């Protein structure tokens, strides 16, 4: 097991090295920092970006928007998912709404949101709309795959409705909630940044990426892309860590 884990880490490390090598070769081929700067130039630019006075404001604004959108999506996704799991009529009511949310192109939602909301709230709205269906669907899937015999056992032993919800339903769907949150945040961060690119709030990763693209600061654009990737990976790691801490029984 430990050997397999070491082997996987090594394989991942080699994969990163190969990607960097391809990047380096391509940058040598193009010979232009305006098209593709080299990995080392991008690293220097990344450090410079991190050291700027506005870095924390920019990243903080994006994280805050992401968290607000995520919290609203998580509360409604988990809450409505549980209720829909318990009541078929609500599930039937929610189905066309969720299907519409999922099928609508993100850019169409952003264009509408630009009309309806202020630049600061557009990314929050986008975050909510992209994350909510994923969390909701995972929770309802959790209900559908629940072992009905456990609920029958709990009812047989006279457990109250509250006890069944808190001690049978919720623990049973926790792995699905975590999986939903993980997929939702992965897609959500990308959607938030697209929202910021188009809405242009005062501070935001998308805002600075857009201005870097306008002025052909490709190294800065890639630097912010790397920061966005690290941000998304960091949140993914936190979610996985929480999963290991909560789901101890597997």
């Amino acid at each position, binding site marked *: 097991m430990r050997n397999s884990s070491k082997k996987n880490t090594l394989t991942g490390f080699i994969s990163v090295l190969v990607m960097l090598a391809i990047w380096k070769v391509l940058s040598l081929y193009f010979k232009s920092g305006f098209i593709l700067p080299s990995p080392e130039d991008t690293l220097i630019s990344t450090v410079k970006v991190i050291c700027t006075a506005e870095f924390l404001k920019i990243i903080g604004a994006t994280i805050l928007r992401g968290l607000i959108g995520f919290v609203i999506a998580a509360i409604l996704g988990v809450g409505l998912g549980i209720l829909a799991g318990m009541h078929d009529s609500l599930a039937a009511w929610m189905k066309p709404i969720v299907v519409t949310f999922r099928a609508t192109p993100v850019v169409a939602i952003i264009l509408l949101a630009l009309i309806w909301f202020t630049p600061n709230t557009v990314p929050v709205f986008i975050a909510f709309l992209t994350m909510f269906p994923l969390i909701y669907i995972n929770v309802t899937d959790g209900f559908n795959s629940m072992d009905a*015999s*456990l609920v*029958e*056992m*709990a009812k*047989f*032993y*006279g*457990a109250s409705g509250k006890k069944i919800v808190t*001690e*049978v339903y919720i*623990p*049973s769907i*926790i792995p699905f909630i975590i999986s939903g949150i993980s997929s939702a945040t992965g897609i959500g961060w990308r959607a938030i940044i697209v929202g910021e690119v188009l809405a242009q709030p005062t501070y935001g990763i998308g805002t600075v990426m857009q201005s870097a693209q306008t002025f052909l600061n490709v190294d800065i654009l890639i630097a912010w892309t790397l920061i966005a990737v690290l941000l998304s990976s960091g949140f993914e790691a936190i979610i996985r860590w929480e999963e290991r801490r909560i*789901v*101890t*029984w*597997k």
Partner: protein
Amino acid sequence: MSLNLKNICKSFNGKQIYDNFCMDITEGTISCILGPSGCGKTTLLNIICGIIAPDSGTLEGFANKKFSYIFQEPRLLPWKSVRENIEFVLDSVNNGEKVSARQRKKEADKLIKRVELEEFANYYPSQLSGGMKQRVSIARAFAATSDIILMDEPLNGLDINLKHGMLKWFSQLWQQDKRTVIFVTHDIDDALILGSDIYLLSKAPAQITMHQKITGPIQERNIESSEVAAIKKQIQNLL
């Protein structure tokens, strides 16, 4: 005191499972129900505890009775430890007074000890063998405040040694807490080892074709004695 099923009729999709079925169960004893597959043994348990309503007929003496159920599979909550699974069925209120978490833990530990799982009290079901899980299920049935324990072939799929162990743990718990037990099984030996009364059912629509009382304490029973062997042969001939 006796519990009576009178003229029970039940059919599923046009198939008559019970037709004017009658049975008397003595309280505080272990009644074993034997019968061919599909004769409606599980249906009978479900009628007794009210999960299924009979089409007609009456159940006397079952009103206000509380039940524990030892299912074919242990049905333990995977996210709860052995102790927590037992605590799950313990009342948080007893005679109007709140039972503290400490008291519940103490009660659960007492039962865990009786089924010899002290070392595994904090283990999750995924860390236990099939036999251990079923022992937890037995302990849980005795932990719950109930008058009647229903057992639906809980020893199915266990090897012979485990089965004997399980019968031993069950009888130990029952000796200290003689609740009414209705034990559905297809294994004649299990019925002869545990039962106070053995009922043999016919094919559907089921009727009792034989009722045999077994006397003597469980721990003194010898499955190979001539007396028990004769009963076993009689049951085999009727099955």
